[in-house]
């Protein structure tokens, strides 16, 4: 199992860098993961999405797709792609320390 080191701590991740043990994640490492994904600074809007990802994962055991994010996170799809240009659900899931969402739509 590959690992990643953020802020001097080691975390278990999959081949693409998604956390496999979401409980290991904490908010203080989010900015470092975001930088790795090309996002310079996490704004309140980024955090709204990241927290929503965590919430959905806790409730349902899986992260939401972009469509679900657009409908229920309070951030519309256009803005989601401005915040996370390389794929909102995918990148936000990585920053939020949850597995990659698997929906097709």
């Amino acid at each position, binding site marked *: 199992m590959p690992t990643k080191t953020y802020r001097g701590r080691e975390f278990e991740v999959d*081949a693409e860098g998604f956390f496999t043990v979401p409980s290991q994640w904490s908010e203080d490492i989010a900015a470092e993961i975001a930088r790795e994904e090309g996002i310079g600074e996490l704004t309140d809007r980024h955090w709204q999405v990241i927290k929503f990802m965590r919430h959905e994962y806790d409730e349902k055991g899986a992260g939401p797709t*972009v469509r679900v994010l657009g409908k229920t996170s309070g951030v519309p799809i256009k803005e989601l*792609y401005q915040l996370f240009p*390389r794929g909102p*659900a*995918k990148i936000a899931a990585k920053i939020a320390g949850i597995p990659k969402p698997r929906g097709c739509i």
Partner: protein
Amino acid sequence: MSDNAQPMPIEKVSIIVSKGSLDGVYPGLIMANGARAEGIEADLFFTFFGLDAIHKARHEHIKMATVGNPGLHFATLLGGLPGMSAVMTHYMTQRMAKLDIPSVPEFIEMIADTGAGLYACKASADLFGLEKNDFIPQVADIITVGEFYAMAAGGQIIFT
């Protein structure tokens, strides 16, 4: 996958939608939306009856083809009965709604919001006598096949 033999990731796709039936339109839309979700650049190019998917008056009425569709597993003659296409379209859209798959108009609006480009084929638009204002506002332009190839440069082309 081994570390030294990673295939090059796909960075850009240009998807052609050439059919105007429900089962002809959705695959291209799902491929485009899925590409954007992966951070892959995507453009959609609508040609021939695929133009119905971006036609203001027609895109809400995309129907399932019931004639000559062996995938439905019923006799060809039944597929041609009056109302059969409407019934099967209703059945399919109900099933899709249950899975939270958006309707064609909603899906196309969503795909435009993801930053994908929507284009109409000039030869087909000329053939059907359609102009830019016949299409939904998300359509960026009516383009020639040459312009399409220029736009598709450096990426993968997917024909549906």
